[in-house]
């Protein structure tokens, strides 16, 4: 706090006589008011002759006009215009006006953008936020407390929609020391903010900045040079910047950050942040399913053939063995990661074979969700499990893969497991080998902080009585920085995994058990295997907490979502990032990868779900409809055609993945928006911002198939079963 360098203030201070020096020497002294006018001394010196000079000018001008020396008069007028009444030179260059300069420059910039051509507006508007942030931070670090506050309050509402969280964090930054310690300021200062403009818009911008150099252009230029990374794109080179796309974007009521905009400054989709030749080339992904090895495939096939004999397939049904063969054939044709690209797995045991067989069976007997027919989405059935009398202490829910158990984590440090159908659960085996009294639910105690997620080990329903494929383990993560593995047979904690240096926000099992993934406040995600107490991989790169994690179904990749609004994809074997997705305007609250491994769905606080096409690293579409407050869970149908989400607004919503949601608006004429704007350009912009916000809040995109409200119960978890029914879980909060 004490050794506070006055950042850019140095250059400013040099001109302002002794003030700069004293500020540097007494950092604790208060924000002095720097003279806005840097030439006070000069003018003081010249004051004595001021009056007479002014008079002289008047006399000479009078003389010249009398004599008709018009051109000489004009020249004199022009040359003396820079002086005020007292003969002091008038400030013309905005950059010399101290703290106010940023406000003036920003005003100028904004007005220019709003009066620009409709088609460039969306592009150029993207520049406003970074210019705002860097102006503000510069103001603070140059110690203009009043100006910085005014600046912030004047313009904050423009960004309220998209950058609510950042604004809140920035708001408190008031002193230069804060700039050094605040997380958000560090993030913005340590990296350049990347914005992509179409080339024409960029030329337009340069022209503007040059022409308005004195009125504030210079301030903007220095900001853009220092902190921004403006990329230009040929309109023809990238279809995202094609004329049609630009027009469409200009017409849309709401705007989102582009896929490559923001702090990490990466090429769209790519996780590569360095600039240079070839960096925009994306790593090739292998998104195919993990295949079984030859031996276990035979085992599974044998199992299925047995099953076929006992329960011969009904009419019109394929036999299980056939279904299995078909699946293998389909899997092999896909882009399957090789053995070396996958984390090793323990050799399969009877349980794995039985699970595999059961999966094939459930898959064959599932409720088929085909694509939409005649404009109507498929009808999905949802069973809702509601917890009562929780007093809002439930933090998370999970259903086991065998559909027998439901677990809830609580604020009050414990976990509780119920059987889904209300049947009694066997207690832990006693000393004499006898099962103790069965109870309706079990509490698991051990954590010393709120439990933030629970996850059942992969399991499937079982046809035999012993339940070989039933779920046996549960993982939980907590604010006490630990992850615990619980046995569901002895109802006790088996292993404590320590390693994270902060509350662990999320934990999830790998698709085949054995491995699990955690994300924490310490900004890392870690991969663990159950048989080791140390983590195996560390995924580092997020600027803030890793809030949510998720596995790719072939377990070669993992995804992490963070409150730096980014989703990243990592390769498990070497821990390298392979994709990076920006586009969310709020904290990520849920992630789910489609079973076919090609699409990732991510949801955020503001009620938006984004689908990402993994292979090209592109945004597929945004789906809106949920209210504010977080979409807590996402789940995919077996065919990867339908997505179901549940969230804090107490609704379960069903989405069509394949239908593009702006398709219907394509045919509209673009004239309306343009004409409306032209009538009252400046006024409509101000009021438009408020109206826009409201319109955005109620928007439900057309690809929502249906929405099912609950009775005052936020939905914490949704899960598609292998047979395409949805389980939803929530707590009733009257």
């Amino acid at each position: 706090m004490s050794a506070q360098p006055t950042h850019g203030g140095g250059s400013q201070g040099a001109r302002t006589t002794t003030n700069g020096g004293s500020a540097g020497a007494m950092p604790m002294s208060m924000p002095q008011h720097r003279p806005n006018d840097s030439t006070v001394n000069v003018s003081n010196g010249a004051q004595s002759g001021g009056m007479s000079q002014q008079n002289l000018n008047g006399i000479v001008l009078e003389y010249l006009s009398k004599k008709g020396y018009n051109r000489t008069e004009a020249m004199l007028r022009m040359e003396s215009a820079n002086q005020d009444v007292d003969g002091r030179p008038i400030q013309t260059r905005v950059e010399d006006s101290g703290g106010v300069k940023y406000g003036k420059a920003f005003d100028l910039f904004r007005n220019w953008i709003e009066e620009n051509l409709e088609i460039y507006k969306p592009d150029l508007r993207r520049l406003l936020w970074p210019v705002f942030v860097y102006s503000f931070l510069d103001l603070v670090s140059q110690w203009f407390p009043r100006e910085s506050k005014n600046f912030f309050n004047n313009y904050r509402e423009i960004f309220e929609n998209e950058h609510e969280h950042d604004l809140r964090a920035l708001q408190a930054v008031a002193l230069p020391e804060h700039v050094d310690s605040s997380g958000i300021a560090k993030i913005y200062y340590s990296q350049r903010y990347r914005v992509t403009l179409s080339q024409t818009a960029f030329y337009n911008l340069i022209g503007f900045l040059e022409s308005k150099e004195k009125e504030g252009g210079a301030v903007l230029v220095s900001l853009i040079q220092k902190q921004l990374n403006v990329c230009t794109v040929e309109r023809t080179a990238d279809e995202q910047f094609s004329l049609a796309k630009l027009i469409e974007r200009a017409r849309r009521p709401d705007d989102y950050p582009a896929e490559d905009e923001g702090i990490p400054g990466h090429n769209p989709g790519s996780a590569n942040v360095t600039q240079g030749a070839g960096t925009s080339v994306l790593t090739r992904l292998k998104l195919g399913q993990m295949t079984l090895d030859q031996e276990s495939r035979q085992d599974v096939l044998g199992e299925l053939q047995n099953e076929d004999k006992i329960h011969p397939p009904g009419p019109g049904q394929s036999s299980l063995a056939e279904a299995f063969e078909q699946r293998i054939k389909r899997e092999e044709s896909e882009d399957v990661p090789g053995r070396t690209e996958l984390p090793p797995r323990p050799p399969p045991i009877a349980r794995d074979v039985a699970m595999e067989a059961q999966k094939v069976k459930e898959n064959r007997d599932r409720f088929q969700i085909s694509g939409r027919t005649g404009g109507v989405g498929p009808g999905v059935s949802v069973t809702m499990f509601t917890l009562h009398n929780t007093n809002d202490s439930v933090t998370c829910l999970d259903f086991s893969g065998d559909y027998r158990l439901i677990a809830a984590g609580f604020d009050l440090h414990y976990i509780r497991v119920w059987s889904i159908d209300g049947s009694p659960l066997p207690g832990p085996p006693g000393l004499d080998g006898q099962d103790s009294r069965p109870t309706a639910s079990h509490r698991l105690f051990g954590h010393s902080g709120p439990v933030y997620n629970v996850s059942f080990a992969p399991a499937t329903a079982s046809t035999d009585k012993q339940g070989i494929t039933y779920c046996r383990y549960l993982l939980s993560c907590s604010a006490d920085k630990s992850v615990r593995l619980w046995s569901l047979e002895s109802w006790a904690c088996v292993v404590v995994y320590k390693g994270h240096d902060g509350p662990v926000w999320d934990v999830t099992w790998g698709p085949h058990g054995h491995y699990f993934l955690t994300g924490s406040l310490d900004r890392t995600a870690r991969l663990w295997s159950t048989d080791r107490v140390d983590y195996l991989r560390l995924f580092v790169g997020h600027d803030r907490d890793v809030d949510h994690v998720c596995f790719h179904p072939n377990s070669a990749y993992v995804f992490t979502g963070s409150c730096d609004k980014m989703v990243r994809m990592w390769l498990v074997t070497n821990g390298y990032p392979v994709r990076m997705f920006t586009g969310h305007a709020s904290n990520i609250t849920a992630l789910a990868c489609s079973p076919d491994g090609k699409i990732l769905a991510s949801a955020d606080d503001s009620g938006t779900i984004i689908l990402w096409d993994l292979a090209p690293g592109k945004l597929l579409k945004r789906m809106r409809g949920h209210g504010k407050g977080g979409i807590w869970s996402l789940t995919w149908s077996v065919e990867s055609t339908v997505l179901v989400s549940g969230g804090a607004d107490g609704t379960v919503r069903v989405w069509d993945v394949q239908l593009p949601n702006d398709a219907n608006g394509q045919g509209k004429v673009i004239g309306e928006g343009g004409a409306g704007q032209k009538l009252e350009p400046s006024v409509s912009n101000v009021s438009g911002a408020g109206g826009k916000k409201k319109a955005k809040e109620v928007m439900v995109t057309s690809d929502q198939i249906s929405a099912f409200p609950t009775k005052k119960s936020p939905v914490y978890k949704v899960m598609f079963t292998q047979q395409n029914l949805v389980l939803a879980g929530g707590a009733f909060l009257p």
Partner: protein
Amino acid sequence: MSVWNPDNIKDVAESLGIASLNDDVLQGLSSDIEYRLSQVLEESLKFMRHSKRATLSTQDVAQALRVLDVEPLYGYESTRPLRFGEASIGPGQPIFYVEDEEIDFEKLINAPLPKVPREITLTAHFLAVDGNQPTIPHNPTVADSRSQELVPKGPGANLHSTAINGADNITVKPLVKHLLSKELQLYFSNACSAVFDENTDEYRTAALTSIRTDPGLHQLIPYFVQFIAEKVTHNLKNLFILTQTLQLTSALLDNKNLYLDPYVSSLIPPVLTCLIGRHLGSSANPLSSFSLRNTAATLLGSICKKYAKSSHTLKPRLARTCLKHFLDPTKPLATNYGGIIGLQAVGGTEAVRVLILPNAKDYETLLREPLEDEGSSKQAEAEAVLTALVSALQTLEDDTFGLRNNVQNGETANLEQQLQEKVGTLLANRVLEMKRPKFVKALLETS
């Protein structure tokens, strides 16, 4: 300018022995405090979010402080959201404080243990079946969810899906009309006219018997139900038609092949009208309607018995209606009569004990005046009501058993007084006249 009041800092500085703080320092400190506070809040919000709550708790703040490497504040642990009181130190200057009640330690120790909080329970229901939300009590009604945005809106909204999801307000008319075969139509018109045939008894009985037994009438139920309702509303003066309508209703109810559950709610209003209608039949002879009311009561009783299971609010609702009409002094006596016998039919002895007996004394005052009015029709009516009351009360006697006939002569006077206190003089006299000590005893012992 700053949210944090610099006076606070001054106070703290003074308490530390720093008498005068520079104003600039104050400003700097207060904005620094604001910054630190917002850091803590920012961090606490994370914990709130991950707990999937919408209210910040003290626990979140404690966790945040721990993460920021600050010792958490102890003593503020609370599982409930804190309640803030508001006090004013001047116009427009509210101060908020945590309400901290003073608790008397003695009282706390001696107070009974607080109630055990309710156990957390798990329930399951269908939120959606094949894409439609079933209308069951577990799901919100359409009115509840209207405020939420459930249907695609905006430029790209797909009209098909909205209409088919049924979430919009367009009422979709069924494309297929309800087809009724010629035979059924003929049957319906003939049956209806036969039931109301005043001249031939045979026709009526034949029609009713047919309706009572025919297995193929299901399609006609809605028509019959509507027909009954119409007949009753339009023929309140015609006792014959009303009686026949009741017969028709009872015939329908008796038919074992019909599934009437969904129609019970529409069948009840006509029956109730026959039971407690203000003026039924010609107004010249009010007593004439009493037999109709009796029939209606019997019918209501049988409906209750049969359908109370499928609709658990049915019985209370009926009982409430009957009670209301029994105790309403502004209604004619005939209506009160209907209320009494209706209550008895619907609720049985239980209703008599709980609803009629306690009200008998008060009600009796109503009867006095008309009873004394010799020879008028009012008197006859009142007499009938009194008889109905007594017979209703008499059911209590059958209900109590194990009582011996052991009333001594000396106690009679005493008993009489007690009885009068309980049910009023009129009724007490009536009861005593019957000379059934067991009955008297039963009345007295029922509290």
